[in-house]
């Protein structure tokens, strides 16, 4: 369903942008329909970069991302925007990912509004699915706890019924018990919607428990791990 071929990405850092860091070095990756692939690696190993490249939120220097037969690297912005209905990101830190001046309801409804398919019922339905209470929808992000905010960003990502979701350490900021709740929720929704997950984490035990396959990223290369 989704394939990354020979992906390369370098970043320039330092004063005068003189240093070059190679983050992805000829990465090949495939994610099949309905499966959960865990991506593990140390901090700074390029997990997040790879996730974002696959979603074309960061353009790779070279290589191709093929999603359902289309090469995403060749698409124009507008065409890519349409495909965003099928691929979504659940970010690591929900506090930073939500607009502090918007009510939670508006943040969840935003993807529908962007694509001109806003329906009030769909917002209410997804909020219920992720376990948000009706009155919480009219609150602002600062009025919710970390676990509740995580539910909000999950709702926002899943409201368009995507085929492919990158979960970027969705529980690393949460308490243990809340972490278990959120992961159970993600797994339940995956079954209902038949979504594929790329689950980025540095927790090997967690990866072992939830993933069909585990990939490890290390110095720009991705290797499969049993």
């Amino acid at each position, binding site marked *: 369903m989704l394939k990354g071929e020979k992906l390369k990405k370098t970043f320039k850092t330092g004063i005068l942008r003189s240093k070059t860091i190679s983050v992805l070095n000829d990465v090949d990756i495939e994610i099949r329909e309905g499966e959960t692939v865990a991506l593990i690696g140390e*901090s700074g190993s390029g997990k997040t970069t790879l996730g974002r490249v696959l979603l074309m939120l960061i353009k790779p220097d070279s290589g191709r991302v093929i999603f359902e037969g289309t090469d995403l690297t060749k698409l124009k912005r507008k065409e890519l925007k349409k495909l965003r209905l099928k691929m979504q990101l659940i970010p690591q830190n929900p506090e930073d990912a939500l607009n502090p001046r918007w009510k939670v309801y508006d943040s969840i409804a935003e993807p529908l509004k962007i694509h001109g398919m806003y329906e009030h019922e769909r917002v209410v339905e997804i909020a219920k699915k992720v376990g948000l209470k009706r009155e919480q929808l009219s609150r602002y992000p600062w009025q919710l706890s970390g676990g509740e905010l995580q539910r909000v960003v999950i709702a926002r990502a899943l409201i368009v019924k995507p085929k492919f979701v990158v979960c970027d350490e969705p529980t690393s900021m949460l*308490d*243990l*018990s809340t972490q278990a709740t959120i992961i159970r929720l993600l797994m339940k929704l995956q079954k209902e919607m038949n979504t594929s997950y790329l689950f980025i984490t540095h927790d090997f*035990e967690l990866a072992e428990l939830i993933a069909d396959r585990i990939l490890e990223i290390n110095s720009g290369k991705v290797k499969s791990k049993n």
Partner: protein
Amino acid sequence: MLRVENLKVHFKTELGIVKAVDRVSFDLREGEKFTLIGESGSGKSVLAQAILRLLPENAIVAGKIIFKNRNILELSEREMRKLRGKEIAWIPQSQNSLNPVLSVGFQCAEPLIEHFKVSKRRAFSRVFKIFKFLGIESKKAKNYPHQFSGGMKQRVLVAMGLSAEPELLIADEPTKGLDANKIGQIIKIFKKINKTMLIITHDLRFADKLSDRVAVMYCGEVVEISPAKDFFSSPLHPYSKGLLDSLPSRGLKPIKGFQPSMIDSPKGCKFRERCEHSIEACKKTPPVITLNDRLVRCWLYAKRREIEKNV
């Protein structure tokens, strides 16, 4: 070595009184690694801050904190300054606690210069020794915090805490934001440090590998104190069990419900509404039950003990 007796820390806020720490008692034994486990908002950081009297002014503190036969809560601010860093040192939670415009070496030498009035040179030579012990190259001493990675900054913070040779080290969430590899390194370093340590964490796996004894906090109260080995093999309090069961390796089973607010927390046992075993008695304040070298604040064990007595 350190004894906390019936400690209460309450905060006055617009919404009411927040009972961040409520009726907490425990003691630290010489040389042990004592871990305080709890979820965010359970009051564990506040408890540690109370020991060093680092709390904001709106905190109302009652009870006793006895350190070497002195009640810390009764010391003057001047005496407190002498004590902080020299007798009890604090390893802060955030790696942003480092001063961005001072070299890390100087920041580690500062407690020595401050407390022992030694020359900068002698202070630095001591800092180099600590750096070596913690696996930081001594030439890095003149570098600034932004030149360090998260794991290295954490080591610098540990070096800062160690520099004046305190008798007690308090580490607040030393693994926050670090990945599994770095956590492993911190565990090694902590094991090497031969001092009494009070470690605050929500990372159970970290606590498991490191601690001698564990205290579990829930909603401002200590609900269980056990030797680490017993705690991880057979936790006593239902909340402790729930916490352990939510680990991925133990089935990833969440505890139902939410931690109650500290402003109007339920009367009686605060875990009652989330507990599978709750009984009528739980509406009353649970007693602290001693079982060998373990403590648990739960009615279940009170009942059990009564039954045993009657038999």
